[in-house]
């Protein structure tokens, strides 16, 4: 399975693009995605926090991901 992964803030800099096609081995869940990303992009592990939004909602690590989902990396927010 390949997803379209969207990255904001510092995660865009780390991934090198606003959007990347991404596939990974292991659990096709938020937790599985984060584990794989941490191995391929160690700089992500250094962040204060890293959340994932699936279809515009913050998603826990158990949430399953399918090809149609809008999956977005949310590094520490700093609006206001």
């Amino acid at each position: 399975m390949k997803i379209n992964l969207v990255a904001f803030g510092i995660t865009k800099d780390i991934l090198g693009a606003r959007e990347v096609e991404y596939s990974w081995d292991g659990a096709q869940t938020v937790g599985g995605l984060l584990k794989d990303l941490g191995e391929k992009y160690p700089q992500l592990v250094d962040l204060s926090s890293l959340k994932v939004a699936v279809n515009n909602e913050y998603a826990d690590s158990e949430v399953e991901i399918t090809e149609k989902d809008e999956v977005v990396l949310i590094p520490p927010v700093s609006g206001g």
Partner: protein
Amino acid sequence: MELPLIHISEDPLELEKITRLVTDDACGAIDIFVGTVRDQTKGKRVLKLDFEAYEKMALSEMAKLAEEAAERWPVKKMAIHHRVGSLAIGEIAVIIAVSTPHRNASFEACKFVIDTLKQTVPIWKKEIFEDGEVWVAAHP
């Protein structure tokens, strides 16, 4: 509460207009928080701030905040406007305006919204210094 007025814009935020939108005949109080760009952070000179938003989700998170505030305080009207793009020192990044019948609730609801916005709404700012740039709060 009436439907909250939630907006993300690349254009300068309009304080007078936003305040008019939340003014209500049944309310005696409006509290307005205006977040502006400071010229320094931890003593280091800032040249400008770049803001970006995951706009669709930021709008829905801001609407949730407004609803949460309205559950806790007797909010009549609320506006949350956030700017994105490149902002110079002194420019307005965010305006939160809340009207309530009496004043204590307007202060409390407005403070709740800005405090929570900074924790949950997917908007990011990068500080541009003379010698580099930093995504705020990205690292411990």
